[in-house]
């Protein structure tokens, strides 16, 4: 942590100042106008979520555009998109912790919350896509009067275990990280109820040296456990595709290329959220240009892996000599959905090359726009993978087209609303930056100077 000390935290900060600055967002500043405007927009989109879900439950999945041959549609596109976004939190928290990257400290809390919320948004889609969501508990193994058990040879069931484990472990990681900060909020809060609630959540944390020792041990172990987990989750999501025999899905490049795509989109979303956040709350001292620069570099690197994935798909379509694979690729690039493929290449491969420029990486506005661009690009990628592979498979007589209906879009917009709502509530009620880790970082810096 000795290098670029001044870059990852503004000058002149003390234990007191970082504590007061971060906790004041929750305890002193109250509800600002920007927050209210954001929350209103999020609430309108939440209305779209509730309406779309109600319509879906009343009329069934027929209100969506899915049918033969495209049975997956936007539900799976959105599921993979959200779960991909949900990968950055654990990656930043766990992998960068193990790699001893000091700059993770001011963005990890926030990215973990984003992960938790994105996983919830993701979870809605497979749940409603099963058709009868009130029976979704059939996916879990429990002794029942029907005498049946789930089919553990199916990637769909692997998904249930991977996503629910990921949600649980992400929550544990986030909560364990929060406990010392909740104690800080308990001690700083002036309102009685705030003290009671934060106090209960902090569980009586008092910062004892014995506690810190076990705490750090547990945190490090969790990081070590979460690292293979985060890789496994998107690998298993990619198995949903790769284990099937559909042309364009049945390839071994899928797991690494999906994992890279997940990190790509996750970092894009962290940038999309943290740039307005730091402007709104004046957190430039904590989320510095150095952080944005580092995140942009990770985005560039993973974006290149994704681009490699696209080129390998094309290469293997030719090299395999399989007529279905070759047709699939030509259809993807020149068929009725060619617009999506061309847009994907432009948005996800060509435009992000601007990140090579130092000037782009040091401009918050440029990075914000690029991060939104990547979010769109990664959504297009999943759309291209799901739809173009399914709509024209082996038998020309069963070819068809897929057009999402307003309820498909309504549900997607609705989950964005849910995401924003929960993010805004998180910003309002919990510290967006890990306070105790900022203090720890300051302590290390002091040692470095003396």
């Amino acid at each position, binding site marked *: 942590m000795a290098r670029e000390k001044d870059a990852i935290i503004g000058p002149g900060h*003390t*234990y*007191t100042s970082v*504590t*007061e600055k971060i906790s004041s967002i929750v305890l002193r500043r109250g509800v600002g106008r920007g927050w209210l405007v954001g929350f209103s927009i999020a609430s309108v989109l939440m209305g779209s979520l509730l309406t779309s879900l109600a319509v879906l439950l009343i009329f069934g999945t027929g209100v969506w555009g899915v049918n033969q041959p495209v049975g997956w549609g936007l539900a799976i596109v959105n599921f993979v998109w959200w779960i991909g976004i949900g990968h950055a939190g654990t990656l930043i928290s766990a992998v960068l912790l193990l790699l001893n990257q000091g700059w993770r400290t001011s963005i990890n809390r926030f990215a973990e919350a984003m992960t938790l919320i994105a996983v919830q948004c993701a979870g809605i889609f497979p749940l409603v896509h099963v058709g009868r969501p009130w029976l979704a508990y059939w996916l879990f*193994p429990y002794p029942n009067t029907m*005498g*049946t*058990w*789930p*089919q*553990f*040879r199916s*990637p769909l*069931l*692997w998904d249930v*275990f*991977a996503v629910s*484990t990921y949600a*649980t*472990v992400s929550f*544990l990681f986030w*909560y*364990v990280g929060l406990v*010392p900060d909740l*104690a*800080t909020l*308990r*001690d*700083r809060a002036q309102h009685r109820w705030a003290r009671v609630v934060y106090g209960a959540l902090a*569980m*009586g*944390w*008092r*910062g*004892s*040296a*014995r*506690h*810190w*020792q*076990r*705490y*750090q*041990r*547990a945190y490090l*172990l*969790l990081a070590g*456990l*979460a690292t*293979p*987990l985060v890789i*496994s989750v998107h690998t*298993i999501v990619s*198995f949903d595709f790769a284990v099937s025999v559909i042309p364009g899905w049945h390839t071994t490049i899928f797991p690494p290329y999906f994992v890279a795509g997940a990190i790509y989109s996750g970092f894009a979303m962290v940038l999309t959220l943290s740039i307005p956040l730091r402007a709104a709350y004046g957190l430039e001292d904590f989320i510095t240009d150095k952080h944005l620069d580092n995140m942009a570099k990770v985005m560039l690197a993973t974006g290149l892996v994704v681009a490699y994935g696209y080129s390998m798909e094309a290469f293997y379509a030719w090299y395999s000599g399989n007529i279905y694979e070759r047709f699939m690729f030509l259809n993807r690039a020149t068929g009725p959905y060619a617009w999506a493929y061309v847009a994907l290449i432009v948005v996800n491969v060509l435009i992000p090359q601007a990140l090579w420029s130092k000037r782009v990486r040091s401009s918050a506005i440029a990075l914000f726009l690029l991060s939104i661009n990547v979010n769109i690009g990664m959504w297009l990628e999943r759309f291209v993978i799901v739809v173009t592979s399914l709509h024209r498979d082996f038998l020309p007589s069963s070819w068809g087209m897929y057009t999402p209906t307003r309820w498909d879009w309504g549900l997607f917009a609705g989950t964005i609303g849910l995401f924003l709502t929960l993010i805004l509530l998180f910003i309002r009620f919990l510290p967006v930056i890990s306070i*105790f*880790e900022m*203090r*720890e970082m300051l*302590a290390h810096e002091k040692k470095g100077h003396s």
Partner: protein
Amino acid sequence: MRPGVYGLMAEFDSADALMAAAKHAFERGYRKMDAYSPFPIEGLDEAIGYHPTGLPSLVFLGGLAGGLGGYLLQYFTAVIALPVNVGGRPFHSWPSFIPVTFECAILGASLTAVLGMFILNGLPMPYHPVFNVERFQFASRDRFFLCIEAKDPMYDRARTAREMGEWAPKDVVEVAE
């Protein structure tokens, strides 16, 4: 030992001062004590004579139990409870059981790490005497505390207070039980 007294608490304004005081206290023979800080300080736990307990081995066992449980669950359902013949493939098709086994192992280990940490730390603890000290609220912000407990055999109100005073504290106060 006087009734109603938990111990004596000294307040320091830097991690180094707390560390030095903890070492002094240990040298003097105090064992029933604890140090409190707003962030983890490397080596402080050893300075107060604490030896780490077996959290890592617990976590290993938790992971083992999770993985084993996950695998046996799949074996039981696919081979014993509901054998389904899929194109003549073996019922015990272990390669397809790996992903769920892995996830269950991670889940078991993670739950053990978190629950183990809280339980070994004695949390949640709704009441603790150290919070009776007014200034202790700053232990979660920028202040450092060392508390020598009255149940330590070496504890003597006057002598301990005098000794603590020599370790350059900001203040030394008595902690009510």
